[in-house]
């Protein structure tokens, strides 16, 4: 059998292959030859064959059939065999292979070999890829070698011990005695590896940490010698003596000084010395400074030293070397929480880094900039950050936009500024904004009451420019739906109001519905906005038409909405104004709650996201089942009539005034507090509801109010069978010669009562007693307290609005006893 070809020969041959296929062919041929050679158990050429196999393995070809051969090589007496064998073991074998364990014995023997280079090979292999079992078996040998005086072996043994500890932490104790005088070594190799070993032990065990704290003075001395000693050719790197050792010592000092005042005190001087004396012209000096800064920031150093450290980082930021700038930004990010003021001083440099060409640096600068924003610098910082948002890569935009929103929310100097900032983000990075920002922004806009006109105007203008960015479009359509009346009436104070007609606005919203750019969610927003405008605009017919068209939309969501809105137009037009009225100020916590659904005749209300619907809708008395779902609230919500576009939530204040004396906890309660569960009182009152009852007929009627020609009479009946409920019918008559139109009757009762107002018969009280308006009030009086009521009347008489408040105290005793 001819001798197998030499390694270099093979490499040369394979490199001549012009295609992948050709190379594969060569490799396969050679593998076959190697395999047959292995089968023949040829000792002479085993080494050569394994070497070739390792080369082919590096090219990506399978080499598992050589694993056992590596073991044979390791077991051989020849140094060359061992060298290749161990290399093969490190490349081809790892913990998962079974043959791995077979190495243990060989390694053990080699650890005790007479030649230090063989021992070195064994230590190296064990320290690189020894499994836990192997480590357990051989820890004793390693420990022995750790105590040898041979520095070549000692340094390798130290790192091997590190590996053993990493694999089997319980064995750490075993190496403790051997560490006794490791630091008194002169040999830098041993010193370095010893520091690594000590670091590993201190990081893993608090006891070890305590034990080794006493080494701090020694470490400080060694470091001092390194800095002060003259040129040492053996360890010099660009004028610095053994930077690797210096950095490792600094790191160990960091671990030892952390949360310990005495140790920190002991290293203060040396740290200051290193920080000020290290040559910074080359990377190596900066590497040491970097480690020094990290140590200073982590231990309990005095403030002067900390400021020195931050200033070093500040200088790093100005360095031409990108790596150093990157490292500075990363470190500043770590310290910005604890040393905020010191880092603030370097703010302008950090902001400049936003313009850096390097992606990693830009990202760090952005994170750091957001961390530095506070109430004082918000305007300036935001300018820079918005500029950054404009020009940065798409990968940054989402994070930057979120950061801007967060910062604006925390530190906005004025509402106008806040809205402007949001507008800017939406228009420049609108498509990258996170989905959850849309509801947050809507809430913010709602709560900035005085800015509504300005906001809707700006959003409208933005929509005219660009309808492709969905979050922007969603927020804009919501606002237009909500505040469209402000838009067309040109009420903007903050800037020049634009002239826009209702039709133009509807054109824009309808445009969104048909545009291909609009997402389904956006279409939903748009349709709801159009619907809402039906109570704010006068072109109701146009809106009706749009809504009816979408009743047959393929999009199920749109279809459902349109069908419901259609129903609202057709059957429940009297409810429409109340349903579509202005949103109240939203509580921040409540706005994340589930959408409240109020049943109205089995239909759900148009569920605009994250809103609560305030006014509760009353039912005609014969809609029995639906009454079950309404009300039941604990506070009496003076139920507002549905025949008028009702006042916005701020009207709650008025009602509070109305009820003040009655010490009602009044005010329109936020709707989510209204449970959908059925209170007994309504249930009881429902079954058969004779409006008149023999028993209650005995209660005499009373005049509750009589003024300016308007007279309101109360007639009573007891709801059967619940005697706690008084059913009062009001009769409103008008003795004047002009009709009273838009008549609204409102009532409030003290806390211990509950009140329900049903729909009035009409809202025009005809003149000259030609007719009356009747309305049913149901009062629950479980505590049988004296019934008192406060009423508020509003109507239009002879063209002018009239409003009056009155207290009704003259209830006949039978009505509440």
């Amino acid at each position, binding site marked *: 059998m001819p001798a197998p070809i*030499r*390694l*270099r020969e093979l490499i*040369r041959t394979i490199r001549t292959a012009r295609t992948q296929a050709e190379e594969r062919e060569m490799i396969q041929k050679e593998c076959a030859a190697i395999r047959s050679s292995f089968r023949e158990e040829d000792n*002479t050429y085993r*080494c*050569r064959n394994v*070497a070739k196999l*390792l*080369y082919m393995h*590096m*090219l990506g070809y399978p080499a598992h059939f050589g694993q056992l051969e590596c073991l044979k090589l390791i077991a051989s007496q*020849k*140094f*060359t065999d061992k*060298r*290749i064998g161990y*290399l093969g073991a490190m*490349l081809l074998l*790892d*913990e998962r292979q079974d043959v791995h364990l077979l190495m243990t014995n060989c390694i053990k023997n080699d650890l005790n070999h007479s030649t230090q*280079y063989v021992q070195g090979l064994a230590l190296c292999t064990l*320290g*690189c*890829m020894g*499994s836990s079992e192997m480590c357990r078996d051989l820890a004793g040998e390693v420990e022995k070698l750790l105590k040898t005086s041979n520095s*070549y072996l000692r*340094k*390798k043994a130290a*790192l*091997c011990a*590190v*590996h053993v500890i990493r694999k089997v932490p319980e064995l750490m104790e075993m190496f403790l005695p051997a560490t006794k005088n490791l630091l008194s070594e002169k040999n*830098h*190799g041993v010193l*370095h*590896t010893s520091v*690594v070993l000590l670091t590993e032990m201190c990081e893993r065990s608090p006891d070890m940490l305590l034990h080794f704290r006493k080494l701090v003075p020694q470490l400080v001395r060694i470091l001092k010698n390194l800095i002060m000693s003259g040129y040492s050719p*053996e*360890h010099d*790197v660009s004028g610095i003596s*053994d*930077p690797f050792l210096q*950095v490792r010592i600094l790191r160990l000092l960091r671990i030892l000084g952390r949360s310990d005042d005495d140790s920190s005190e002991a290293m203060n001087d040396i740290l200051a010395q290193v920080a000020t004396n290290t040559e910074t012209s080359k*990377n*190596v000096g*900066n*590497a040491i400074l970097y*480690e020094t800064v*990290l140590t200073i920031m982590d231990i309990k150093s005095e403030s002067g030293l900390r400021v020195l450290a931050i200033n070093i980082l500040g200088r790093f930021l100005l360095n031409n070397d*990108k*790596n*150093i*700038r*990157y*490292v500075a930004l990363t470190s500043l990010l770590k310290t910005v929480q604890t040393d905020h003021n010191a880092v603030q001083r370097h703010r302008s440099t950090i902001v400049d880094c936003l313009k850096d*060409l*390097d992606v*990693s*640096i830009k990202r760090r600068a952005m994170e750091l900039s957001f961390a530095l924003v506070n109430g004082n610098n918000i305007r300036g910082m935001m300018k820079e950050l918005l500029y950054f948002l404009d020009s940065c890569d798409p990968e940054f935009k989402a994070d930057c936009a979120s950061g801007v929103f967060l910062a604006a929310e925390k530190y906005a100097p004025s509402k106008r500024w806040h809205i402007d900032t949001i507008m800017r983000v939406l228009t420049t990075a609108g498509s990258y904004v996170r989905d959850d920002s849309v509801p947050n922004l809507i809430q913010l806009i709602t709560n900035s009451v005085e800015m509504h006109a300005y906001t809707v105007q700006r959003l409208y203008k933005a929509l005219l420019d660009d309808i492709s960015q969905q979050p922007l479009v969603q927020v804009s359509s919501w606002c237009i739906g909500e505040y469209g009346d402000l838009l067309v009436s040109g009420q903007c104070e903050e800037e020049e109001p634009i002239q826009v007609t209702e039709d133009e606005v509807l054109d824009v919203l309808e445009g969104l519905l048909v545009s291909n750019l609009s997402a389904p969610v956006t279409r939903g927003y748009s349709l709801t906005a159009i619907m809402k405008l039906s109570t704010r605009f006068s072109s109701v017919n146009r809106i009706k038409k749009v809504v009816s068209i979408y009743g047959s939309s393929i999009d199920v969501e749109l279809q459902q909405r349109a069908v419901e809105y259609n129903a609202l137009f057709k059957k429940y037009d009297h409810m429409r104004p109340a349903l579509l009225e202005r949103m109240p100020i939203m509580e921040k916590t409540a706005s994340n709650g589930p959408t409240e659904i109020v049943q109205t005749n089995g239909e759900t209300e148009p569920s605009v996201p994250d809103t609560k619907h305030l006014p509760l809708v009353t039912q005609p008395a014969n809609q029995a089942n639906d009454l079950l779902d309404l009300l039941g609230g604990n506070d009496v919500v003076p139920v507002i009539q549905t025949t008028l576009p009702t006042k916005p939530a701020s009207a709650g204040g008025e009602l509070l005034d109305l009820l003040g004396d009655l010490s009602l906890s009044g005010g329109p309660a936020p709707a989510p507090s209204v449970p959908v569960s059925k209170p007994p009182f309504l249930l009881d009152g429902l079954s058969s509801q004779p409006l008149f009852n023999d028993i209650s007929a005995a209660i005499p009627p009373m005049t509750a109010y009589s003024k300016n020609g308007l007279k309101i009479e109360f007639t009573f009946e007891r709801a059967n069978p619940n005697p706690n409920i008084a059913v009062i019918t009001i009769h409103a008559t008008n003795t004047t010669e002009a009709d009273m139109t838009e008549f609204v009757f409102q009532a409030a009762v003290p806390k211990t009562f509950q009140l329900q107002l049903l729909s009035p018969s009409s809202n025009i009280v005809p003149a000259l007693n030609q007719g009356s308006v009747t309305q049913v009030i149901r009062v629950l009086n479980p505590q049988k307290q004296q019934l008192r009521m406060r009423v508020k009347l509003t109507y239009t008489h002879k063209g002018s609005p009239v409003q009056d408040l009155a207290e009704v105290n003259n209830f006949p005793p039978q009505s509440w006893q």
Partner: protein
Amino acid sequence: MMHFLLLFSRQGKLRLQKWFTPIPEREKKKIVRDMTTMVLGRKPRSCNFLHWKDLKIVYKKYASLYFCCGLDAEENELLALEVLHRYVELLDKYFGNVCELDIIFNFEKAYFILDEFLLGGEVQETSKQVVSRSIEASDMLQETMEEYMSKPAF
């Protein structure tokens, strides 16, 4: 500690791979692919540091070879650059004006030198001379064997 050290060419061909943690073969291949893609995709004047999973990746280009290592998050990146540089210096001393071809044809020597410089992912010797002397001595041991065998080992 260093988790791995890779050397690859501008075309993405692997010239050396040293792993200091046990990783399955398939995953090693994936890491190599990821590293080559990431590093070769970097713009020319970017900084030498990257993030990948929870490791810091430090790389440096020397002529046509990329030296790429993966470090724990608490390692000093600037010092890692010095480590890579030291390794190149050692190779240079050994081969005399080292180039990629040297490493291709003498890959096993490159490994031997590395094994005298790093062990278990940490630096074992900070003196260039000591490392060089160890390599020379080991080589002598090998040659002695070869003379004894009166034929080249491989």
